[in-house]
């Protein structure tokens, strides 16, 4: 190793950064080369002097810093904790929001179940409690049996067969059965109408003002609301027959109305008689 090789190694050598092989080579050269040995000695002296003086001259941490530095940690920690708890409450709010969204999903699902239940109860053909063809007589029979007054609608193309009290889900309803006359060779069809109170808006009758037509278990279910009362009409009539049955403005039953939505359901659900 010559002077040129040693030069760049001198500083790491003095800093004790050389691995054994290089260190030994540098030491060998320094032992043989006077100028390099002298240079190394000067460098070592200056390095030591600078280090010693720099350290000796460095002031200690002021008492004010010593006193405040961990207090700062404490304050910061409290702030962090507060921020964490804020984040936590944000998370809790998120959970609550999800729960709320979940709940409203659940609720809208529940609201749609009335259609299913009305269809399946109609299908089971529960025996009628009373067999009377006149709507007025049926209204009289229902009087006092339910929490609400029952208006029995009249349909031009169907005749009431009778009625009973029958639940739709948890709601006690008036159930009125109508017989639609046989068309051509087909057998007579039955129409069931549930009338029940729904002050809590628990039943989905569609967002539009006109009656809502849905299909459930092979039955067409028409739902509409009139004040606090919900009407659910269940039938295995086809949509076309249903229009014949409900003639006033049968077009209104279309799912996608071409006409402007009427302010009131076009079905004639006015009470057959009025008994204040």
């Amino acid at each position, binding site marked *: 190793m010559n002077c040129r090789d040693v*030069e760049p190694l001198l500083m*790491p050598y003095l800093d004790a950064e050389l691995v054994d092989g290089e260190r030994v080579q540098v030491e060998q050269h320094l032992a043989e080369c006077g100028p390099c040995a002298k240079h190394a000695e000067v460098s070592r002296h200056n390095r030591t002097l600078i280090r010693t*003086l*720099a*350290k000796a001259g460095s002031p200690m941490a002021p008492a004010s810093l010593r006193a*405040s530095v961990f207090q700062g940690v404490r304050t910061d920690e409290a702030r962090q904790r507060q921020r964490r708890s804020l984040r936590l409450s944000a998370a809790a709010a998120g959970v609550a929001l999800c729960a709320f969204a979940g709940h409203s999903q659940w609720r809208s699902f529940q609201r749609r179940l009335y259609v299913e239940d009305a269809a399946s109860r109609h299908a089971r053909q529960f025996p009628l409690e009373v067999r009377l063809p006149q709507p007025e007589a049926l209204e009289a029979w229902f009087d006092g049996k339910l929490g609400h007054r029952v208006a029995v609608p009249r349909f031009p193309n169907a005749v009431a067969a009778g009625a009973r009290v029958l639940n739709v889900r948890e709601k006690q309803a008036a159930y009125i059965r109508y017989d639609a006359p046989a068309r051509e060779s087909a057998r007579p069809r039955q129409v069931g109408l549930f009338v029940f109170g729904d002050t809590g808006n628990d039943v989905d009758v569609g967002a539009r003002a006109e009656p809502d037509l849905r299909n459930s278990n092979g039955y067409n279910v028409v739902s509409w609301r009139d004040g606090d009362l919900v009407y659910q009409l269940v039938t295995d009539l086809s949509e076309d027959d249903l229009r014949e049955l409900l003639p006033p403005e049968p077009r209104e039953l279309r799912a996608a109305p071409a006409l402007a939505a009427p302010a009131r359901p076009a079905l004639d659900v006015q009470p057959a008689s009025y008994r204040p």
Partner: protein
Amino acid sequence: MLGFSKSDRTRAEFEALVAPWLDTLYAGALRLTRNERDAEDLVQDTVMRAYRFFDKFERGTNFRAWLFKILTNTFINGYRRQVKERSLGDESERQSVEAQFFSADTTDQAQNPEDYLLQRVMSEDVLAAIDTLPIDFRMVVILADLQEFSYKEIADILDVPVGTVMSRLFRGRRQLEKVLRAKEAVQGEAPLVDLNAYRERKKLA
């Protein structure tokens, strides 16, 4: 407020680990910021950040080096801009400078061996000389000569290769000696004059 005892224990452990290094941290911070007020703030911020990241510190590893990594990072990210520190150009310029100086500077130095720095140099002179160094050199000199970190530790703290540490340290020390020697030359004359005057007065007396 739950889990208070746990965080209290962690904090006690943290404070016990940091306390012995407060003077060292402050000494380093003072050379970086070059004023006492900023140095105190820098140490305060460093300790605060260190506590925040304390769970990331691997127990049993070099805590002092870990603290200084946070100190230099905090300084670079916050105080350096604020202090309007002049840095060494961009990275490419810096590398070419570093590539050249070994050949040029070392031969230059080999031909003209430097003299001893006189014992007359004072601590304040050395610290003031360190403060004149450009920040990249200053950081390496502070870490090597004031804090006595190894090249490897400095490379880890500053996130640069060991070769870069060596070249910056070499240049930083050379410039440091140059500044001190210039200072010495100015100071060297004054006492001599005074001494002669003193002798003259002695003779007269």
